[in-house]
């Protein structure tokens, strides 16, 4: 097993190298000049001479491979470089944003699971019953509502009508409440549908039919079904984490949550390549590690699955 894990780590490094080269290459080829973006960010006209000087200062006039090589050697040393936009070091920028996004993402994930897990179990074991119909309808609505709409509705009711929270959320626990709900509602909707489907698939297995035929208690059947489904449910959750890390940008913007999503969106607009590259590498690592961990966990929980 250790050998297999080491092989997975080696493949992860290769994937990251390919990923970084691809992203660096794509950004090199993409239209848009970081120097021009930097100089004209306030809309003041620029001159060709000033633009050329800024390009040289930012090192944008050097060949592609030289720039990629320098960036890569920096990454190996743990140096993500400096932001094109404001010359600030990328590492601390990403670190602060990542920490806040982690807090937001995992809080929403926990809330979504707290909502989705029991409802999907009840829904699956009461298939086509009244509760199942209601849960499916609610999950459909939750899944269909866009984040920004949920956010604005929550602000309107909780901040304006009920006056329970300030519109201007601070970066504290209180400020976390509404963004977490905004992210959790659609996520819970997705989880309910996916988990219910997984549980229903499991319930079609012969062992369930056999237990039902033998008159085994419902609670025991639920326990077995859950135990056999848990690996797939972990995969569903793991896939969601990756998209959560970069997908909370709208929520972060509306609620002024200083997370990494908003930072990256601003960086894309500004063609701030060092920040974008740093983000891609970090998210790539997180995504791959979580998926590998999910595989390992799945294997531990259900040794029949291959690693």
């Amino acid at each position, binding site marked *: 097993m250790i050998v297999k894990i080491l092989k997975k780590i080696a493949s992860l490094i290769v994937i990251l190298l390919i990923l970084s080269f691809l992203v660096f290459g794509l950004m090199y080829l993409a*239209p*848009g*000049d970081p120097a*021009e*973006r*930097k*100089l*004209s*960010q*306030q*809309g*003041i*006209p*620029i*001159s*060709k001479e*000033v*633009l050329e*000087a*800024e390009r040289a*200062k930012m090192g944008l006039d050097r060949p592609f491979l030289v720039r990629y090589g320098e960036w890569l050697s920096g990454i190996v040393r743990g140096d993500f470089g400096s*932001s094109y*936009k*404001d*010359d*600030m070091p990328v590492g601390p920028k990403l670190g602060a944003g990542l920490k806040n996004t982690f807090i937001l993402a995992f809080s929403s994930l*926990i*809330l979504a699971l*707290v909502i989705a897990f*029991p409802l999907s*179990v009840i829904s699956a074991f009461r298939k086509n019953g009244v509760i199942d119909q209601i849960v499916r309808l609610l999950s459909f609505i939750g899944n269909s509502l866009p984040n920004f709409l949920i956010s*604005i509705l929550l*602000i*309107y009711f909780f*901040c*304006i009508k*009920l*006056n*329970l*929270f*300030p*519109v*201007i959320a601070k*970066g*504290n*626990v*209180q400020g*976390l*409440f509404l963004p*977490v709900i905004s992210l959790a509602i659609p996520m819970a909707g997705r989880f309910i549908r996916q988990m219910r489907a997984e549980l229903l698939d499991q319930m079609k297995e012969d062992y369930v039919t056999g237990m039902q035929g033998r008159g085994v208690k419902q*609670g025991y059947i*639920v*326990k077995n079904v859950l135990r056999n489904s848990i690996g797939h449910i972990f995969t569903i959750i793991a896939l969601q984490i990756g998209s959560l890390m970069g997908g909370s940008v709208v929520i972060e*913007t*509306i609620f*002024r949550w*200083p997370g990494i999503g908003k*930072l990256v969106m*601003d960086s894309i607009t500004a*063609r701030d390549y060092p920040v974008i590259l740093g983000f891609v590498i970090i998210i790539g690592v997180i995504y791959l590690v979580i998926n590998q961990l999910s595989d390992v966990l799945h294997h531990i929980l259900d040794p029949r699955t291959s690693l």
Partner: protein
Amino acid sequence: MMKKKILSLVLIALLAIGLAACGKSGGGQEGAGSGSAEGPKILKVAASFAYASLDVHKDSNGWYTSIYGMSEALFKMNANMGIDPWLAESADVDGTVWTIKLKDNAAFSNGNPVTADMVIRNLQRLAEVNSGYAYFAEYDMKADGDKTVIIDTKDPYPTLINDLTGSATGIVDLDATTDFDNDPICTGPFVIKNFQPEGDVEVAKNENYWGGDVALDGAIFYYMQTDDAKLLAMQNGEIDCYNSVSSAALAVYQQDPDKYKIVTIPGARLQFYILNVNTLDDSMREAINLIVDKDAIAAYLEGTVSPAVGPFNASAAYGKVTVPATDTAKAKELIEAAGYTMGADGFYEKDGQKLTVTVAYYQARSLDTIALLLKDQFKAVGIDTTFRQEEDPDSTYIQDGNFDLALYCMIADSSGDPLKFIKSTLEDDAYYDCGGYDNAQIQELIAQLKQETDTAKRAELANQIIQMAIDDNAFGYTGLFNKTTVLRPGVSGFAENIPFDFYGIDANTTIG
């Protein structure tokens, strides 16, 4: 058993979230309201942008340190697009030599006086760290005593004091400042209290302000990017003012004039288009300019822009130009005189080719809306439109010139002088001279404008240059963005009457 476990899990989680939410009591009331009569007077502002550094000289940070009331330059733009002394008392020029006298009492927040030597070192640092001001390194600068700066620009440079109104030229105590990014020591009525990079900024009154009493005790600038959030925060009483109000929010505020004061003035940000002389002949360019209905565009944009005549505010001395009124009948005559006939589909055609104009635009500053409005206006006359939409105009259609009509938006006047915009758009080989327009007489006039020191003559030259470009149908200036500020009653002095975006609070800002 399983049911009990699930139920327990749900209850624990809900309890945890509930406790977390109630971590701080007060809810909406905590953030509501500004300083009261008894408490400190703190102005709360929504800011659309936030930067990672407060280094006045680098990048565009100076815009924000100026808005926060921290940094001050030697000169300042006023509401009439004129220049007032700020840290400087006067400026005189003799040939290429400028003599700038500093105010005797000008001082930093730590009490240190602003000296000529410090000003020179600031300008030298600015040249080093900011490409836009690199030319200062070529000037000979020396101090004549503590309060007189002498700058020899070597070549005549009549707009030096205009440049010295720039927010990046704010003066910093270079000797006492230890952290330029987070705590620069400047001269303004406010000092930094709490700075979150790319987040909220809190400033406090500068107790040693050289300019006298400061009305506010402090201010908080909340970084809020979305218009909806700003509107809701304003409605909830959590902020006192902000500018760049969206048309949707404006409509809400206008319904309640007792609660909101709205100030709208023409700003300096220009929407315009470049006509390509390589693809459109004289008559076709003239026809296009006769078709474009700027009033209809401004009306559609619901108060966010005012129709423009030229690139500059019409109230400025260098904004006195004229354009022919919209005249679609005359436009049709010009098109037909060029050999086009109306086809069965309602579009003009010649030699089997439909008359089509390629409009290049990018999705910002309402240019995408203007592109669609132009399509409608062209279609009404019989011209078809194809679009070229780019995310980044500067590295695409501004570079390659593949368009018939290219929309663009920029600040046409950032320092009370027309030269910068004229150079950028009309000088040979200029960055935005991408429509192929060339006029030798304009080049001569630009050369004169570069040398002319008399303000009235400069305005006259600028008006001549812009009028020529208009008469030759090289450009179309569609609208000037309005600067719209919403303030709670009693709040004033948030630069609401100054058309430039880089001023905010000052010593006179008050919340009533």
